[in-house]
């Protein structure tokens, strides 16, 4: 039993994104999802800082100093891309125009609550960025994250302990052990790494796992 590595997790998310979707990828692991969407499958990537239609990361020598994404990394713009200002960019997010947002998270609850911006009520200089806008605004919110913390605590939980980013927003979670839909019953196992039993997985999960009927 080998958990998916970060590349495999990103590829697994990418596999589920159809052509034609408008997609915002959060900072960190979610950003790498774009690398696994083939260029001939046209997916339009959006960045909070007013870039719509991002293309692959440029070679170091080809970087455009004026073209960065929300993670402050240099990016490229595809044919068909457009620049907008921040209010218009967030109108795209908050107005429900994004088909999908993929974020990382500290915790996801079985009702879809997400906590991903602060690890305590008294965090030093908490930083929310666009996470709350994205979580509340996109048509679908998927989370990609490790199944547990480094010290083994589950990140899929009955109720989030960390400060919330949005209520009942997450539709699907991708972890290093599998894929889980957030349903009315709670977490539904959609996919699972080879060789892992439900019992093993349940032991690493803080909420009840359900199986497809």
């Amino acid at each position, binding site marked *: 039993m080998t958990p998916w590595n970060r590349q495999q997790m990103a590829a697994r998310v990418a596999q589920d994104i159809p052509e034609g979707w*408008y997609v915002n990828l959060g900072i960190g692991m979610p950003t790498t999802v774009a690398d696994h969407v083939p260029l001939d499958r*046209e997916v*339009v990537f959006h960045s909070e800082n007013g870039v719509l*239609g991002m293309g692959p990361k440029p070679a170091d020598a080809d970087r455009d100093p004026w073209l960065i994404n929300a993670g402050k990394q240099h990016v490229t713009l595809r*044919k*068909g891309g457009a*620049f907008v200002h921040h209010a218009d960019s967030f109108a795209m997010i908050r107005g429900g*125009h994004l088909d999908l947002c993929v974020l990382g998270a500290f915790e996801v609850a079985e009702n879809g609550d997400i906590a991903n911006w602060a690890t305590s009520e008294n965090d030093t200089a908490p930083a929310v960025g666009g996470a709350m806008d994205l979580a509340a605004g996109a048509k679908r919110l998927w989370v990609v994250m490790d199944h547990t913390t480094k010290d083994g605590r589950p990140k899929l939980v009955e109720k989030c302990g960390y400060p919330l980013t949005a209520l009942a927003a997450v539709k699907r979670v991708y972890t290093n052990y599998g894929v889980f839909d957030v349903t009315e019953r709670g977490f539904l196992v959609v996919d699972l790494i080879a060789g892992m039993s439900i019992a093993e997985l349940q032991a690493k999960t803080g909420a009840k796992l359900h199986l497809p009927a």
Partner: protein
Amino acid sequence: MINKIVPTMADAVAGAKDGMTVLLGGFGSVGQPNALVQGLIDMDVRDLTVVANNAGGGHVGLALLMELGRVRKIICSFPRSSTSTVFEELYRAGKIELEIVPQGTMAERMRAAGAGVGAFYTPTGVGTKMAEGKEERSFNGRRMILETALRGDIALVEAWQADRWGNLTFRSAGRNFNPVMAMAADLTIVQTQHIVELGELNPEHIVTAGIFVDRVVHVPYGDPAL
């Protein structure tokens, strides 16, 4: 490959249904998606609510749609014009409902719908008939009334250029309500004077990004009447 360009008018207006709310771009003779309105007429959809700045003129576009009895209600800022006889007769006969909205409030209510704002406070209309039945409240000592987002089932938009991703430019005063309405509907349908290759529009000059557009149909009708 994303391709929002559809070959026929029937493809463009497919899915329009009785009872829908239709946002209709254009101001005066400029930027009017009359071909799309004709498409709706040909589909025989009825009982429509239309949001448009004016209540149509002559016997084309919106005026014709009304004349054929397909419009239950019109939401607009300025129904009167020298050629708005169709509307005026229907209105006097009690055959069409009218909701007057200040022009800026109308634009802002649609922008709100497009930007995920549920409602907002504005000073426009305070103390007037437009404030009747609306909540009032002061911000920084200024009296304001609460206006809610105005969303369409369909937006009909006229553009100057469009590419297959649905990126749009407009021409001159033809811009008007078109980009605002494009944001504010579940289904945004565009008639465009010119189809251009993807990448031909400068990313700094795109006015409405394709994310707001569902379908594009090529209608190179030329200039509005002088």
